[in-house]
């Protein structure tokens, strides 16, 4: 089995490799496995689903630059269904992808990305009227290794023309500063009469979203 796989890989690598397209649009989805125990407040498992959409520009034969918008979210009920909490993270990501051509249809890829992230945390008592909200910003870094299968859109078409690509990638997501939710408060109607009392902030704590990640994706290169 192992020998056959090596021979097949060598045969594929010997094939001519297509040139990178000028541009691409992609949609990726997957999960991040968050190891910080604080994540248990907002999720019943360690996995947080993630979606990434964006576009890429081929800067050279082996390098693509990407811009992407990502979303990651989780919610859970805790303490005998008394408390409901949710987390939603917006990611604005820039990435560099190095392609390692393996064959006409396969390419390996090494991707490094940095993201500006905005996270919102909600905590409320189930059936209560007060929603405790906070917002935090952070920096996300990630590195992944992936494998891409490229197929021409038209059967028998030019390998350099418009292609559909399928991707699987895995790696590690690192959030060096975490998210500090130390200013949570309930948003009250400022037009009420009399105006609401000054709100004291609640420090719910900090959350680190670092951990392994796995993504699948599809892209259209042209």
């Amino acid at each position: 089995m192992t020998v056959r796989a090596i021979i097949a890989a060598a045969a594929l690598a010997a094939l001519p490799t297509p040139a990178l397209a000028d541009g691409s649009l992609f949609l990726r989805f997957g999960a991040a496995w968050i190891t910080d125990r604080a994540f248990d407040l907002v999720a019943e498992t360690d996995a947080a689903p993630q979606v990434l959409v964006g576009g890429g520009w081929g800067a050279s034969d082996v390098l693509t630059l990407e811009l992407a918008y990502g979303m990651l979210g989780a919610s859970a009920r805790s303490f005998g269904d008394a408390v409901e909490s949710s987390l939603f993270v917006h990611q604005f990501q820039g990435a560099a992808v190095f392609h390692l051509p393996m064959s006409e249809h396969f390419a390996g890829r090494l991707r490094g990305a940095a993201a500006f992230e905005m996270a919102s945390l909600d905590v409320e008592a189930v059936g209560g009227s007060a929603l405790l909200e906070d917002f935090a910003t952070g920096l996300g870094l990630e590195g992944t290794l992936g494998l891409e299968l490229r197929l021409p859109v038209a059967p028998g078409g030019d390998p350099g023309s418009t292609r559909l690509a399928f991707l699987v990638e895995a790696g590690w997501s690192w959030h060096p500063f975490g998210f500090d939710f130390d200013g949570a408060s309930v948003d009250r109607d400022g037009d009420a009469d009399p105006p609401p009392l000054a709100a004291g902030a609640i420090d719910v704590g900090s959350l680190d979203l670092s951990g392994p990640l796995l993504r699948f994706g599809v892209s259209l290169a042209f």
Partner: protein
Amino acid sequence: MDIRHLLLPLLLAAAGCGTRGDAWDRPFETDGPVAAAGQVAFLQRTAGVLGWIDPTRGGPPSHRDVTAHARAFAPWAEGVLVAGGRGDAPVLEVVRLPAGTLRRIPLDAAWDRIEVAPDGTRAILLFGAAGTAPVGAAPVRNPNEVAVVDPAAGTATTVIFQTEALAPREVVFADGSPLVAILFDNAIALVDAARPERLRTIPLKLRDGAALRPAQAFFSPGGGFLFVQAAGTDDVIALEIAAGGEALDVAINFLFAAGLSDLQAIAVAPPLGEAVVALYRDGAALLDAAGDTSATRSVALASFHHRILDLGDGILLFHPAPGRSDLGIAAWEPRAGRVVIDRLEKPIVAEPVVAGTSAFLPQGTAESGALTVATVVREPARLRLSLQALQLAGVPTAAIADPASGVAFFGLDLLRGFTAADDEERTGTGAIAAVAAGSLGSGGVRVDAPVLRLGIAGGHLFAIHDAPLGDLTLVPRGDLRREAAVRYEGIFASGLLDRGEE
């Protein structure tokens, strides 16, 4: 098997891995907020997170981890006490505030109740009547086993009394003495908290086997006697406690007032010395602790009274029970033999509070509130009882007195007058009213929710509102303005992300 066939199941399994611990599924249990060492402290018991607000500093509540198996929580002089830990490794955590430093004292049993002396320097750990054994604890527990705690020294000494009771009922601390009394169903236990080896159990069994159930007890102002009111007798039981010595020697006296019956309440007052005031259905008496009947003073009362308030300077006030239709009120100065009897306009709806030399008696209906301020004035020829009525903007739901300033504070519910159609978000639906004893100068501040309870922490007043995640308003006592008030909603969410491992 081809690895491709394994890939999808592996991915699906990986997505669900890493489930969270059982603590997240346990019921949401909280304690407090309470005033502790000038802070407002609260405990999220299930998560094991202690939070506190420093009123002078402001800002978000601070928090720290405590045991995730907390069973009891109480303030002491320098912070809070948390009893918890697994049943096979029970601990008492002594937390100093506002620093948040924690000291852990191993315990001999998984007690689930903490009673702290009024000065906060000593505590007693005991079993509650309805508690269940925690995980890992012995399946049998002895209700006679208690711990005497000196939080500052970090010691907890286990002592065992000899009673036939199922559970302790109340704990009474002596003022200015380390003596502690624990009331059981049919016995009184005494222990010297400074030397816990000095202890004594006094069974309250009659010769025919019937038991007297202690209902109320007070140490005499000098600490030499414990006065006990017990169901089943009209006598006041006086336990005379011998000073010093290795053992705790106790002599028992039964005090009574000839011609008076149906004992309702007892009280002590420092100006009256080593004596007890007993309130009966048809009168009241001052009984000498040593049983000297020549020192007995008594007065006949036509109306039924419920409790005794000490207005200071040797004057006592008898008032009716909240929620009953009785209206009689009387003030008595036993040493001078003077009494004044009057009637209230309306029944009282909650236990009164005393500030300065006045008693504040909450009154009202389901939708409106009032106060009667009772002040006793000594005149050359008589005692005069001034009953002054004050209207409140809402229904009184909480009260607290500040003995230092002589101001009584009342929490009000302003929402009850609204109809169900008023469904928009409302502010200003609660209030804190302040009334000064003597001058009856009044003030207050509207807060954004009805007040459930009031507390005093340092120079600030805090009002607790009804909310599952905790909701309180903090306002300086000397500056009752909305602009000076801060509302903390969701305090029990403090530190939930920072809680430690189970």
